[in-house]
């Protein structure tokens, strides 16, 4: 494989929330939920995004407006072209028959969305700062929602919701993507309740295919050994939930 972007045409754009849009484009080839693509806007930059929709020969990427790159991305319309390379990384290991729970925090929900249909018995927990940031409310009718400001659903975090659910029922597996502190707390809960756990980490990605060393988390390269890691690996990664790496390569306390 040659690691270079190729141009594809965006065929549809959906507004999901005031700050997030989903871009659809044609793609054929294998893709495992949790893997990511590098999206290139020529002369600007190239950044990692996971697939949030798989529909026949179309894939969708849900993009949160955060900085310069994602602002420019949001200006793209159907018919415009972008560069993509991938898929990269290790996705989720789906165990379809287990009673499972998906926990998405903020834009992290995008990475989990494609596994909902593949699991037979799944509970979804989604949290956001405020109600207008909650994703896919029409797409998944039956979600346990929570918001920091109490504008919709439970007032509090996904971790609180999980704890409440665990008082009444048992999950055999949890899949999570969201702020790392959230994922860390869930890891502790899974340890206590002996639940299988996989989480998708976010680190600064440069090459995307395992050579530059930028995306390290305790000796694991997020881009190629992850971004999805299993509980067994997470508990061995001292940086998980604590330290992340900036664009310069400095290790800092996780925001």
């Amino acid at each position, binding site marked *: 494989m040659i690691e270079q*972007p190729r141009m594809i045409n965006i065929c549809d754009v959906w507004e999901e929330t005031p700050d997030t849009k989903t871009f659809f484009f044609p793609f054929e080839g294998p893709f495992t939920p949790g893997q990511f693509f590098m999206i290139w806007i020529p002369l600007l930059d190239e950044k990692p995004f996971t697939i949030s929709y798989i529909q026949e020969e179309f894939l969708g990427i849900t993009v949160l407006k955060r900085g310069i790159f994602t602002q420019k991305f949001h200006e793209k319309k159907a018919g415009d072209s972008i560069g993509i390379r991938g898929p990269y990384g290790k996705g989720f290991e789906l165990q379809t028959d287990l009673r499972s729970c998906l926990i998405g925090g903020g834009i992290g929900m995008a990475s989990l969305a494609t596994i909902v249909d593949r699991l037979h018995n799944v509970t979804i927990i989604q949290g956001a700062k405020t109600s207008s940031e909650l994703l896919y409310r029409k797409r998944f009718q039956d979600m346990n929602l929570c918001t920091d400001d109490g504008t919709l659903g439970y007032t509090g975090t996904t971790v609180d919701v999980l704890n409440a659910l665990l008082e009444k029922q048992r999950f055999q597996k949890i899949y999570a993507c969201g702020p790392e502190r959230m994922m860390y707390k869930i890891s502790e809960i899974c340890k206590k309740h002996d639940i299988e756990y996989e989480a998708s980490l976010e680190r600064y990605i*440069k090459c995307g295919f395992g*050579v530059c060393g930028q995306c390290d988390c305790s*000796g694991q390269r997020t881009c190629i050994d992850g971004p999805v890691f299993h509980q067994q690996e997470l508990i061995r990664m001292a940086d998980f939930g604590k330290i992340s790496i900036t664009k310069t390569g400095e290790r800092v306390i996780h925001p």
Partner: protein
Amino acid sequence: MFLHLQDEGYNGNKLSGRARGKAATLIYRFKSIMQKVDLSVTLCSIPLRNPTILASGILGTTRALLKRVAENGAGALTIKSISTEPREGHNNPTVITFEAGMLNAVGYSNPGMHAAAREFSDLQEIGVPVIASVIGTEHEDFMRVVEGLSKIQFSAIEIPLSCPHTPGFGLLSGQGTPESTFKITSLVRKATKLPIFVKLSPNSPELCTAAKAAEDAGADAITAVNSMGPGMAINIDAQRPVLGFKVGGVTGDALRPIAVRCVYDLYKAVKIPIIGVGGISTGRHAIEMMMAGASVIGIGTGVYYRGIDVFRKVSEEMALWLQKNGYNTFRDIIGVVHD
């Protein structure tokens, strides 16, 4: 011994029964090779268990990654180059590949010497020598970084005067000329007692004179070579260059014949040892580089071609080749093509 097969289970400790069986046979096979072929080497008084070194800029960003590369068989490790101040480097794409190699314009992103001094602590625990890579825009910067890192137990200092794609550094600021090479090496020589490796560019028409200048200024070895070029890849559909910086250094297979020729020329020009780097990803490549005159070899892009355990694979393949051809040690093949 360079093998740590238990580390094959690093990803989640999930070595299957079959893999365990395979590992056991491999250990047996390696043990029988190791009894006959000696891969250990001393480079400027630094003992290495085998002659493979992780090249600068590939995976050398954190202590944890260095440790992982050591567990995968490298004889020594070079950290990603460090400057006085933090640098974000160029925008993405910073690394791409093409049919015959890799193009990179990372732009020397690094956290600066103070953060680096915190990051690279307890290096002895890694178990193999670690080489600092030190860069600067002004001649004195090299000295400052060496001083900034002086509390860390590095085994040697490498000074790349040869980067082809970062304004202010390397080729873009004339650091690879014989005069600059002499000045910078002399300054670093004053700042440290550690062995100094000067890393040169394959582009340079003055390669041998620059190497001689480094040797005269007190360098202990020459690292040859850095990436060549710069080169460019254009996405014809976007009608734009692909790399964020538009141009970048060429490494990997495309670089190998150039690197071999550089090492061949240098072997005649200097007396100090040569660390041969450029396009090595197999044992045969390593032996080719040594026959040209390298005492040890560096591997960068090979990590992409063959995975993080490329160091173990290359060592194994060297040992097999040497054994088949009746050598007890690779030291007997260094420079043999020169007769």
